[in-house]
């Protein structure tokens, strides 16, 4: 194992990101412990999604450092991080709309030998065998997400909640051990919400996958997350268990009178 012993799954130190004059991230620091489900909460515009994009290599940071299991990954490209075991989902699902549901998952597997020219022209037997194995893996993930009956439907035909599940499925296909989930419950109906919550908890417990999730549904955060960070104006203003963070007056002030008590 190349990972440093005892290093957290993810360590973010002083992460800064500016867009023109707007400071989206202003020296945010937090850690995600190996095997945990960690929550990232905060009012709109706090910099949560920017933090995800910057960690996962979609934006170049203007400052700070990101370490994956002790290894510096600051500014690494998304496809490099994917191979290193870090996957992310999007707040608004971004599926490959002209691909089928199962193809959406298959594309997100680790790089395939059939993706390297000229193999598609000459090694078709081997590729067919690899594809069968990959399809079986994708089918297993779809079964886990209760999406089996939609396998061959175009991804554009799914409901918003199902699209969220396909996003999660794509992250699972990568074999990632650390998954960043951007609002897994947004726009999802109550039944599907329970399903998603169960799936995340089960993946964490049974497969040891570490999650960092952004979520506005604070009850869900309380249910799933071992540790929570509250972000405001690009900085971490509170951390602890959900109960501790909820009780912190600084957090209530950041939400500016927003009801953060359960309704």
């Amino acid at each position: 194992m190349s990972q440093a012993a005892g290093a957290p799954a993810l360590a973010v130190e002083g992460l800064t990101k500016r867009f023109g004059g707007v400071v989206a991230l202003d020296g945010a620091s937090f850690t995600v412990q190996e095997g945990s489900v960690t929550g990232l909460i905060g009012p709109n515009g706090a910099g949560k999604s920017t933090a995800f994009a910057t960690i996962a290599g979609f934006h170049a940071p203007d400052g700070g450092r990101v370490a994956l299991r002790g290894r510096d990954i600051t500014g690494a490209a998304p496809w490099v991080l994917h191979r290193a075991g870090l996957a992310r989902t999007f707040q608004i699902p971004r599926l490959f709309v002209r691909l089928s549901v199962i193809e959406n998952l298959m594309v997100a597997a680790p790089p395939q030998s059939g993706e390297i020219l000229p193999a598609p022209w000459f090694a078709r037997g081997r590729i067919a065998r690899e594809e069968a194995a990959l399809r079986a893996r994708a089918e297993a993930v779809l079964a886990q997400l209760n999406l089996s009956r939609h396998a061959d439907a175009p991804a554009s035909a799914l409901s918003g909640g199902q699209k969220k599940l396909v996003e999660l499925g794509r992250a699972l296909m990568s074999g990632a051990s650390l998954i960043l989930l951007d609002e897994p419950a947004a726009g999802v109906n109550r039944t599907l919400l329970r399903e998603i919550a169960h799936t995340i908890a089960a993946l964490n417990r049974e497969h040891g996958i570490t999650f960092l999730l952004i979520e506005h549904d604070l009850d869900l955060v309380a249910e799933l997350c071992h540790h929570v960070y509250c972000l405001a104006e690009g900085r971490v203003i509170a951390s602890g268990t959900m109960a501790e963070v909820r009780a912190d007056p600084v957090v209530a002030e950041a939400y500016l009178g927003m009801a953060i008590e359960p309704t």
Partner: protein
Amino acid sequence: MEPLLLYGATLLTLAGIYAALTLGLNLQWGLTGLMNFGALGFVAAGAYTSALLTAPPSAMHVGGFGWPWFLAWPLAALAGALLALPIGAISLRLRTDYLAMATIGIAEIVRLVARNEDWLTGGPLGITGIPRPFESLGQPWGPVAFLLLVGAVVALLYAMAEATARSPFGRTLRAIRDDEEAAKAAGRNPAAFRLQAFMLGAACMGLAGAMLAHFFKFMGPDALDPVTATFLVWVMLIAGGSGSNRGAILGAVAIWAVWAATDWLAAQLPGELATRAAYVRLFMIGLALQLILLYRPQGLLGTGR
């Protein structure tokens, strides 16, 4: 009988060469979503490469080297791909619409180089004496044999394009075309995949250029113009159905037939109008495209994907 056979062979040979070109554009646009408005540049790269390698020695330009066509054609495809490499490597890292602008520019640059670098290309006089395969068979079997050769090349390119589109490589290209950011999240490097598709399509265009040079037995800066080498190919792909390799071939044959028919029609016009034939032809091609898109918006065989 013989003139008809010869006319048919000429018509189908050119349609076949256009099919190779359209298959190349379909790899770039239909499968990957890359806008290449400079097919002419890649056609010219292949045409000049094969012309110089196969033509007899001449004092007017470098070479020729008198190679057989079957050694020169693969290198013509390679020339198309190599021309695409720097353009793609630079512009595909930016937004994909920049590629469209870059290809327009490169096509003009290739044309200017062909016209002005006499030592390399023979300048405005071009390269003559390019041997046409099977010419020794005489009329009409020589042209028929060449047509069969072009047909075999198109069949090979079709098989290659289909295998590409159906492979995991093709699936990743379609994913990137659908959503680049999501493709990154899925662990794929969009620029690297796009560059390969761009080069592959350009190789098809280079090969088409080589076939064209051997069919004309001549290559010069005026043998190719943007209307026939770039615009017509787009019309063929859109009419046949972007995304479908069979559509690309059908579109090439159908639009080439319309193009040839307008040539005949224009010749029937009285003197005054015949001089206007050039734009009348373009108008008729545009009309044909409009009609197809009106009644089959996805093209003749398009998947609509």
